[in-house]
């Protein structure tokens, strides 16, 4: 091809290119135009490939022409690209439409509260231990200093199971009425010092009503060594209750009776609904009973083979549903077990 013919051809290409670029209304169309005019299969590239076949004296001039062409197109491209990028991206979409449904589930409020409580103790070096829900009578009562035919068993009405016992010495099989049997199980197989929390499900034959359920959850705690005192128990629980109910929470410890602790205490917090003024939530007492606790009874240490003269420590237990009801303002415990998604999905 002659120089003139090439020049002519490049001029035509340049004209076509500038029209194409102007017509490209999207970045994709612009890219298509770039491929057409500058791509590896474009006319301009073909011309450049033909350069070596030109006579040497013309090569420089045609090469310059071709490069000028390329530069011009590239400049035009970049101008057009900038214009396109800046231009309005078409009509606005309705960004107020809801986003796509992303699969997500929720954890049950009882699970969440139980884990929240457990998580307060883990950083303090408490181990999390679980135990069986089907339990020996011995672990549920006797080892915890609750002798048979003793009125103290009355606070622990229990479901008995129709099962032949493989170990009659440990009595019948029951659904545990508290998480405390796990204390015994752990102390039987380990030596102090011990710091454990025990989350779990427990059962008591209380007919269902807004504040009672025959199945509920507890978190139990046990700390045993050679020095932990009642004052330590007060200190730890005060901190934990402040973490659960807020830093301003007022707590009080009052004497109570549990067969497996001595001294025993019940812990109240100032009513969360009325701040201690007295309302229907706290039955006008101004205080809400939150948990039971005390110093582990020496008889319990004896039952697990510890020397009661050498060890001491505390135990505590709290109802998870009760705390969840207080923090979420739930008035009926049965809501936890209806599993209505409208309830669960608020979590």
């Amino acid at each position, binding site marked *: 091809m002659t120089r003139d013919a090439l020049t002519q051809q490049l001029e035509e290409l340049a004209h076509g290119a500038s029209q194409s670029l102007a017509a490209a209304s999207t970045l994709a169309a612009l890219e298509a135009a770039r491929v057409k005019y500058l791509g590896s299969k474009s006319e301009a590239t073909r011309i450049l490939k033909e350069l070596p076949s030109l006579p040497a004296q013309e090569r420089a001039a045609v090469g310059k022409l071709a490069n000028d062409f390329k530069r011009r197109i590239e400049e035009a491209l970049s101008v057009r690209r900038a214009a396109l990028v800046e231009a309005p991206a078409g009509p606005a979409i309705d960004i107020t*439409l809801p986003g796509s*449904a*992303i699969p997500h*589930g*929720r*954890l*049950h409020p009882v*699970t969440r509260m139980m*884990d929240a409580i457990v998580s307060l103790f*883990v950083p303090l*070096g408490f*181990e*999390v*231990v*679980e135990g*069986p*829900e*089907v*339990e*020996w009578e011995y672990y549920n009562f006797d080892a915890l200093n609750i002798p048979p*035919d003793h*009125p*103290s068993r009355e*606070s622990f009405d229990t*479901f008995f*199971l*129709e*099962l032949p*016992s*493989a*170990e009659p010495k440990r009595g019948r099989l029951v*659904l545990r009425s508290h998480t405390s049997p796990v204390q015994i199980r752990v102390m039987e197989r380990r030596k102090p*010092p011990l*710091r*454990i929390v025990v989350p779990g*499900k427990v059962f008591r034959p*209380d007919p269902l009503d807004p504040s009672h359920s*025959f*199945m509920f959850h507890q978190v139990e705690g046990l700390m045993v*060594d050679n020095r932990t*005192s*009642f*004052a330590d128990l*007060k200190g*730890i629980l005060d901190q934990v209750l402040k973490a659960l109910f807020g830093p301003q929470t007022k707590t*009080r*410890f*009052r*004497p*109570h*009776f549990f067969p497996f602790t001595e*001294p025993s205490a019940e812990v109240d917090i100032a009513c969360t609904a009325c701040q201690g003024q007295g309302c229907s939530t706290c039955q006008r007492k101004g205080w809400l009973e939150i948990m039971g606790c005390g*110093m582990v009874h*020496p*008889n319990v240490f004896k039952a697990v083979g510890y020397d009661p003269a050498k060890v001491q420590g505390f135990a505590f237990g709290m109802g998870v549903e009760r705390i969840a009801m207080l923090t979420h303002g739930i008035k009926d415990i049965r809501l*936890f*077990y209806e*599993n209505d*998604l409208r309830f669960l*999905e608020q979590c």
Partner: protein
Amino acid sequence: MRVPFEWLKEYVTMRLSPEALAERLTMVGLEVTAIEQVEGEPVLNLEITPNRADCLSIIGVAREVAALTSQPLKPPSDRRAASPGGTKPASSRPTAQALRAVVRIDDRHGCEHYIGRLIKEVRVASSPAWMQRRLVACGVRPINNVVDVTNYVLLEYGQPLHAFDFDRLSQGTLRVRRAQAGESLTTLDGVARSLSADMLVIADAAVPIAVAGVMGGTGSEVTLQTRTLLVESALFDPVTVRRTARKLGLASESSYRFERGVDPQGVETASARAATLILELAGGEEAACYDVGAKPLKRVGVLVDAGRASRWLGTPLSPTAIRTILAKLSCHVASSEAGGALHVGVPSFRRDLTQEVDLYEEVARAIGYDRLPSTIPIASLTLRSAEETASYVRAQSLRGLCASLGLTEAITWSLIAADEAAAVGCDGDGTVRVANPLSQDHAIVRPSLLAGLLQALRRNLSRGRTDIALFEVGRVVRAQGRIVPENIECLQLGVVLSGRWFPDWTGGKTPCSFWLLKGLLSTLVRRFCGCELQTAHATHAWSDSGQSAAVYAEGRVVGVAGKLSRKLREACELSQDAWYAELAVGELEAIRRAPPPLLAPAAFPPVKRDVSIILDDRVAFDEVARTIREAAGALADRIELIDRFTGAPVPPGKHSLTFAIEYRDPSRTLTAAEADAAHQRIAEALTSRCGAALR
């Protein structure tokens, strides 16, 4: 325990208002649950814990208040003249008319001490208004002056009493003995009760006339005609009374106190007090007093070490401080010869104080729990925590994983109805029944999570929810092998799906299906165990055959999955299809693998080829996938099913599958020709081994 404020004030001087007193009592462990007004008088409602039997009386509470406020106790005997019968135990005093009774304890185990006072020529009538008011305030119905006195003294001293119409006793005889099989008695509540040989009764020469410590019988009841009384004050064995009351399903103010233990020293005091009041209110004369079985009181002694008490309570306590506190609580305190420790003699009414720690609690109560210090414990570090905690953390992570995949957690009843278990085919040999169920709705321990999740599903459907994805992680019980808790209980994961999977306006309208369920389970198993899940056809009682599977991983069965059968849908009145899976968490734990080393992504590009085939419906996907893998050899880096299609133009009984396959050599760039050769091998293998036609 109801305590009329004005009655309490008779025994202890105090300036506290009822509200202030309630607060103080609550803070020493006698919780006041309410203050009621009865005829304009405040009555405190006390919750007495099982250990504080001594506070099941007005005087007991007064004693506590006296100690609390450092005031003297003013018991009635200090103010009234001694009764004509005297307060000293008298063996027997026959009168001129030779009115005699025979009082005998045949069962020393059941009854340690029995005092019977014979009072003649009483005039039974109504009791005075002041006494009736107090009884009513305490929730006791006034009957007549004699019965009211026994109840009054019971409330006052906590010692249960009973008055018999002596003239109605056969041969003037009263024996404390066990019942004989076949004997029966109509108790004062009008119920005829058959007695068994382990029950303790009061009998006359012929028949039982009262259930000892529980309730009297109608045959010897005091009526307006009664002239002669035998007034019982006794000490019955707590366990015997408790067992009898339980067996008869009969609890009374009397049995309640005996079970918890009455003051052995109060038997005589209360007897004398009752006699005084009867003579005062009903006239008559004490003819005799029979005191049988009285033993000298052994004072319980406990050593208390001040140093150990200080360590236990976490506050320094001097022996002097402890001594002062315990003395105020009617303990007799002396320094022991051993030095340092205090020797504490416990008063007879505090039967709960038997060990050193019991006295620590007394000290702590007296100081006030709220005044004891509050400290943060000092503890040694332990590196064991991770081991014990791991299992809990894993169960929690499984729950979290389920929630992150789109399932919402349910917690369903662990106790279900027998027919619920039967409906899902879980009523076989391993079923565990509750011996004392609350109702038939909750009579067996669940052998599977299905019944509970089914109920949750039904409830949500019936309330108009159509798109449901629930899970539960919980224990089930099946009696199998050796019956010990560890063996019969296992943790399961249940999943139920119904309706659409997170539908929205952008087009997400995937209906729930077996494959959605399988996808969730596969992801769970991959994430939780680090291995792949497989399925095999299996039949379950709750699913239709052909729509259900056994779920495997690492060659072990880890659970089941399938579509709920039409029969179950019908029985449970489910308005739409649902899918269910249950995996054994223990099995999942067992196949958990350490995470594999992480590989750098391949540096060389893949060659991508698709293949579409038409297959007979009888050919299972697993077989096709295996054929492709084997034929492609190491070059096939990724094999993905991207489409499955049935219907025209695919002939009936057949379906079409399309796979996208990526070929790759980890060490160099693969040529198209090499990939094509592998792809050709796959096509041939599919044709020859699976009977596939290429599309």
